[in-house]
């Protein structure tokens, strides 16, 4: 630790002030007054500065998004690329906290709604209904060239995900649907045939189960040393995904539904199959068994042969030392028509209250258009939402370790959407409460037909 050079030579304020008793008294009275005056001046100054301190420090376009540090870098690359093309538009990135919806709500309620907002497929409808998001069709109507570009280049299931109540509230910027990662080495060691590499080549629930059984290994004590399948997504959502892959959509209709299919026997068969993987067939760990090690760590360390997740897990898997992996499609149930992923997408929206709508429009156009999407694809951190970017050489190069690239490139087009309703947060809370017992194996999936189905339908009716 270094000492300031003059520290010992200069008399300190304290030593000067307390030199004599008289001077102490004199100084004390002066210092109190001075102190009070100083405090008053400081208070007045801070009050005077208040409006400027709370106001925006520049006229930059604000862009709100949620991302881990790596993803944030990727998004800033898009921002940089945009600013190179539009040096007159300054962009200020606002990184979300752990709960983006909450964070966004507080910004908007405080009158500081960011100009460009990241929108999530499952929660944007609530914001659209409350008038927070702008209907982009109004801007699209004046931009024929971009409208034509979107028509030819975009993937309709993703684009239509953000079409709510006749308005277009965001443009998709990435696909984050589910698929399976698998450990090629463990498949080889067990002599199990590799799973299919395209969505057009489905594999059945029973084939998937046989594979998972063949790849689950137990030690002498009966304790599992290698799992056949692990799930890194939200368990209740995954259960619904298996229901959907048994041929029944989550809800009727998908957009602004009035009914969820938790009372449909075929849908529930898929849910039951998912629950049985852990409870009956013991090829997947239970919630208790994944408390001490995350499912993705199990897969990355070679202790699980297949892991369900989305592209957001790619970096973790790619970095795992000595892991020889590839990806495959989700299994299809006996009543399913084709292998399907979930749409799972995020988009970019413009705040209805934005004062910089034209600049925001330019940014959204760029980030969701061909150039921005190509930048996104090259990062290897996202699956872009435009055909040209998914099929680009840059995207393929960023995923050179994946053999079955068709699972990614064909994913968006082979996705079915989860329900889009302004009441999603309430539906999730209900699912969380009711599906837990089914996933633990203490109640059958058919029990959802009574409680959950009615409760969800009531929420949808009362919206």
């Amino acid at each position: 630790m270094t000492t300031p050079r003059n520290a010992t030579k200069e008399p300190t304020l304290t030593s000067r002030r307390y030199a004599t008793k008289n001077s102490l008294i004199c100084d004390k009275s002066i210092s109190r007054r001075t102190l009070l005056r100083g405090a008053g001046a400081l208070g007045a100054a801070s009050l005077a500065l208040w409006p400027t301190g709370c106001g925006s420090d520049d006229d930059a376009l604000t862009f709100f998004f949620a991302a881990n540090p790596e993803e944030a870098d990727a998004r800033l690359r898009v921002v940089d690329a945009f600013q190179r093309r539009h040096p007159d538009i300054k962009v200020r990135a606002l990184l979300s906290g752990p709960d983006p919806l909450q964070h966004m709500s507080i910004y908007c309620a405080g009158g500081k709604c960011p100009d460009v907002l990241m929108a999530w497929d499952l929660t944007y409808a609530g914001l659209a209904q409350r008038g927070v998001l702008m209907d982009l069709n109004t801007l699209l109507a004046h931009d024929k060239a971009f409208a034509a570009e979107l028509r030819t280049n975009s993937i309709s299931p993703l684009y239509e995900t953000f079409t709510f109540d006749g308005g277009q509230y965001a443009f998709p910027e990435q696909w984050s649907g589910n698929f399976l990662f698998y450990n090629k080495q463990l498949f080889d060691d067990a002599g199990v045939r590799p799973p299919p590499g395209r969505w057009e080549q489905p594999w059945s629930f029973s084939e998937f189960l046989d594979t998972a059984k063949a790849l689950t290994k137990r030690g002498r004590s009966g304790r599992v040393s290698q799992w056949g399948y692990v799930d890194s997504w939200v368990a209740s959502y995954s259960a619904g995904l298996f229901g959907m892959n048994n041929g029944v959509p989550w809800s009727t209709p998908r957009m602004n539904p009035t009914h969820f299919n938790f009372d449909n026997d075929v849908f529930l068969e898929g849910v039951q199959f998912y629950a049985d993987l852990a409870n009956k067939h013991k090829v997947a760990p239970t919630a208790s068994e994944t408390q001490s090690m995350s499912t993705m760590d199990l897969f990355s360390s070679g202790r699980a042969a297949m892991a369900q997740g989305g592209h957001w897990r790619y970096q973790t898997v790619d970095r795992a030392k000595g892991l020889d992996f590839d990806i495959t499609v989700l299994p299809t149930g006996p009543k399913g028509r084709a292998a399907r992923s979930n749409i799972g997408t995020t988009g970019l929206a413009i705040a209805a209250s934005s004062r910089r709508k034209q600049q925001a429009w330019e940014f959204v156009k760029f980030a969701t258009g061909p150039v921005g999407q190509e930048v996104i694809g090259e990062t290897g951190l996202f699956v872009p939402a435009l055909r040209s970017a998914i099929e680009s050489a840059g995207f393929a190069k960023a995923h050179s370790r994946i053999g079955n690239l068709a699972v990614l490139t064909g994913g968006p087009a082979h996705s079915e959407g989860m329900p889009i309703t302004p009441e999603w947060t309430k539906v999730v809370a209900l699912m969380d409460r009711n599906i837990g017992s089914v996933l633990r194996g203490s109640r059958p999936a058919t029990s959802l037909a009574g409680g959950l189905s009615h409760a969800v339908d009531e929420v949808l009716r009362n919206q």
Partner: protein
Amino acid sequence: MTPIDESAAAVTRRRRFSKGRARAGRMFVAPNMAAVAVFMLFPLGFSLYMSLQKWDLFRLAKFVGLANYRSLFGGDPLFVIALRNTVVYTVGTVVPTILISLAVAGVLNRKIKGISIFRTVIFLPLAVSSVVMAVVWQFVFNTNNGLLNIMLGWIGIGPIPWLVDPKWAMSALCMVSVWRSVPFATVILLAAMQGVPDNLYEAARLDGAGELRQFVSITVPLIRSAVSFVVVISIIHAFQAFDLVYVLTGRNGGPETATYVLGIMLFQHAFAFLEFGYASALAWVMFAILLVLTVLQLRLGRRRAALEERSWA
């Protein structure tokens, strides 16, 4: 100047001086009063106003009268669940906290070697934030590798899914809550115990009373007001439980509705469902319940004290 004039001038000086002092006093109190008004009275009034509105942060608030209160009492089955869970949590926290704190304070009140070390150790949880504590306890409650299940395994009890099974989640939550509450309660009770005169114990010893008898018949009755205070404070804290539950069992008070307490319900309605009016109504209902409980508890305490005084007389 006549003596009368002099005394009148002195009175005027004194008046001026006392006026000045009073003004200075008001000036010094003003920042605190402003803080109380801005950070307590205004939010209180605003939340009462909001409880009569339907407001989602984005749209204009709409006056709905007592509709929020009506749907809370009439049509929300989760309110009953949350209330029941909160009562279970409160009883499961307050009763063990008082019993353990009494015992711990009794032990710490003894004059033995190295007692200051034990006192420091006991008070340590007071210094740890609830969130940090909850994260640490998550490791302790881990089903397969948690410390608690390992220790239970030594006595032949199989792994218990503390935070995964709804049957056990509330017990786990109460355990952590007791662990957090005991130090504060102990500090209060220990301070009260140190105020009990030694001659009472000496007299009791002469009469042949043992340690336990002294504790039950002398210590506990003489620290009754401190116990009452601890009970009131513990009930208030337990009723407002949120951070511990949020970190330990998740934002929805799971598994299923096992730890869905009023604090979690309030947070969920306000920040997940954006129903600030409804959440405000719930906050006022919680306030009313606590007020009634506290007043009842204080009245009971006073009546008991009056009865005891009468019996001594």
